[in-house]
């Protein structure tokens, strides 16, 4: 503990800490406003635009980008790609943190957060897709917590408990994949009920499938992206295996992402044909749609392919960043930009700066907790007592 204190003293005024500290202070102030003055004070939400960036970004993007957890654990434990094993723990950790923060963000967004358990304990609205989303997210957060817990238990030295949980790995993984399939797709299915509000190019009866597949793309790309960042900042924490497998993971995940992106492109085109929406492509929204489809789906698919063929790690890493941006763009398009497209521009939603503060605040919290955990718990390395056990 005393050594912790000294390191804390040394690194108290690093740029990261200063910026993060400012954001946290600002975030806390806005939090105070939100919960004492109501949503109207801190958001630009309106009766026409009931959902803003706290749903579009924090919920939809958050859940999509946290998909690395189920994608990686499925690849390693179910599909048997053992050589990617060292990617599992970081991915599970980010998944767990991601979902925890999504749930935190929801407390800001809903009008009466203390009633969030009501659908389960008071009166379930089972006809609602939101019910499915809520149930799956709650369950999956628990699954991720259990999947992550061995690392914490190793750190705490609770061997017995750890042993029991590790035995559950397979069950948890399968359960996690089921829950993820359900809620990743249901997040898209939320919009099925509003064909008159979402632009026809984005509205499709396939939208649940689109959301599910893009979550795989997001998951794969996030693993590459986070891996790169982590290597940059936490290389000293990584063990031999992690460092050795690192490039393999980038190549393997990049190749997979390229294929999934290509498949996604095809079903997107099938979707347009099925609804015969070609004529919309010549409108402003059509151009925007093509930007998304060509710039953020076709292009990264191609770049990933080139990157894996030439073993160009740098290209793959940048493509991962680009792809992640593409998924963010997609979610914002569906939820905010192409939603309510028929309203006059005076009625359209633009986020309030305090909404942005909260979103940034929540991401920052995630980074702080991530850093706290990886500098203490066996995430990037195997705990010496349990080496080679998995």
């Amino acid at each position, binding site marked *: 503990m005393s050594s912790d204190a000294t390191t804390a003293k040394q690194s108290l005024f690093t740029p990261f800490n200063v910026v993060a500290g400012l954001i946290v202070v600002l975030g806390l102030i806005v939090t105070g406003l939100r919960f004492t003055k109501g949503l109207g004070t801190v958001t630009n939400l309106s009766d026409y635009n009931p959902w803003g960036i706290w749903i579009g970004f924090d919920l939809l993007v958050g859940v999509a980008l946290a998909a690395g957890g189920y994608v990686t654990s499925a690849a390693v434990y179910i599909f048997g790609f053992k050589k990617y094993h060292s990617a599992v723990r970081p991915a599970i950790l980010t998944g767990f943190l991601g979902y925890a923060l999504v749930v935190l963000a929801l407390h800001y967004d809903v*009008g*009466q957060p203390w*009633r969030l358990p009501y659908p389960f304990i008071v009166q379930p609205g089972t006809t609602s897709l939101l019910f499915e989303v809520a149930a799956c997210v709650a369950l999956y957060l628990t699954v991720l917590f259990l999947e992550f817990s061995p690392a914490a238990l190793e750190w705490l030295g609770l061997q017995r408990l750890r042993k029991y949980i590790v035995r559950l790995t397979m069950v948890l993984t399968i359960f996690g994949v089921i829950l993820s399939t359900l809620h990743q797709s249901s997040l898209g299915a939320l919009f099925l009920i509003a064909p008159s509000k979402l632009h026809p190019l984005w509205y499709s009866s396939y939208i649940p499938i689109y959301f599910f597949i893009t979550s795989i793309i997001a998951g794969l790309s996030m693993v590459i992206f986070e891996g790169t960042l982590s290597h940059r900042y936490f290389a000293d924490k990584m063990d031999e295996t992690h460092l050795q497998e690192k490039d393999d993971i980038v190549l393997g995940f990049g190749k997979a992402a390229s294929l999934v992106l290509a498949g996604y492109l095809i079903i997107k085109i099938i979707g347009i044909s099925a609804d015969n929406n070609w004529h919309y492509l010549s409108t402003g929204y059509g151009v925007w749609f093509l930007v998304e489809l060509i710039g953020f789906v076709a292009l990264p698919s191609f770049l990933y392919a080139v990157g894996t063929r030439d073993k160009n790690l740098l290209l793959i890493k940048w493509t991962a960043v680009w792809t992640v941006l593409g998924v963010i763009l997609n979610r914002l398009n569906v939820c905010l930009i192409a939603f309510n497209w028929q309203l006059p521009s005076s009625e359209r939603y633009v986020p309030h700066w305090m909404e942005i503060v909260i979103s940034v605040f929540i991401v920052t919290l995630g980074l702080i907790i991530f850093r706290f955990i990886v500098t203490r718990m066996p995430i990037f390395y195997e705990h010496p007592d349990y080496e080679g056990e998995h």
Partner: protein
Amino acid sequence: MSISRRKFLGWIGAAGFGMTVGKTARAASNKHFSGYPDSMGVLYDNVLCIGCRKCEASCQKVNDLPMPPKPFEDLTVMDQNRRTDADTFLVMNKYEQVGNGRGPVFSRMGCNHCLEPACASSCFVAAYSKTKTGAVTYDASVCVGCRYCMIACPFNIPAYEYDEAFTPRIRKCTFCYPRISKGLLPGCVEICPTEALTYGKRSDLLKVARQRIQQAPDRYVDHIYGENEMGGTNWLYLSGVPFKDIGMREDLGVTPAPALTSGALGAVPIVVGLWPVLLTGIYAMSKRKEKISQQETQQAVTEALEKAQSEADSKLEQAMAKAQKEKETAIDKAVKKALEEAAKPKSEEEA
């Protein structure tokens, strides 16, 4: 708590009009639901409407809503297009007509009390109920405030109390549920001086509307808005000008909201049922592959070892043979040498 409140209202209804409260709208079932047979409705006819805003005032009063800054007599308010909000359940909008020689035409914006309401089907705490009266009611005591119902409603009706910090509610027209349950007319209908609003059984109102169109085909658009829109609504509309010109969307289609999501909901059991089987199968396959490759490795190792062993054996043999030979030669040599040596002295001696 909520249930008892509902029951209470239900008893009042039963005592008054012989109507009981319908169950929560189970809208997403696969059964086709075309509305409760004797449900009530209101027909709004904008050919008869003079835009006096009396209905707005009455709505405000019967629902105990705060009075707006400008009085209802002030008709200039209608120069601006308005919508329902947390303090307004009913809005009358004015649409100036250009080029057809008519005066302004009015339109009502308020809850249409859909036969299969999107709001009810979207709410994850089932806060909405489609009652047998036709009214779609909302129970604030369970509402979480996710506002998904606002996303779902195709008519943009539900509004939210964004400025309420602790107990914000959804607000919308109740079809004056407390009043009609007691046998009273809805506030807006009661006060209308021109009978532009008619309250009655939905099935009867459809007949009335058809009759009006038939009797004056040149004054009405040949369409009853709400007969089929989004699967049909309990409130019905007649208009003298195309509906799209008075802010009402004509592209909503006739599919009721629950039918839009039933496919996705139906996929849940499939995923839950199939995924574990599939995934376990894949797991077993990858395990087997791993096992086979392990076996192969094992075999290769054994073979290699065997080979090495046999090689080693043969080498040993060779070595032994060589050693033997060397030994033999060495002996030979030694013998030869010994013999030679033995012969030497002889010759020396001889010499």
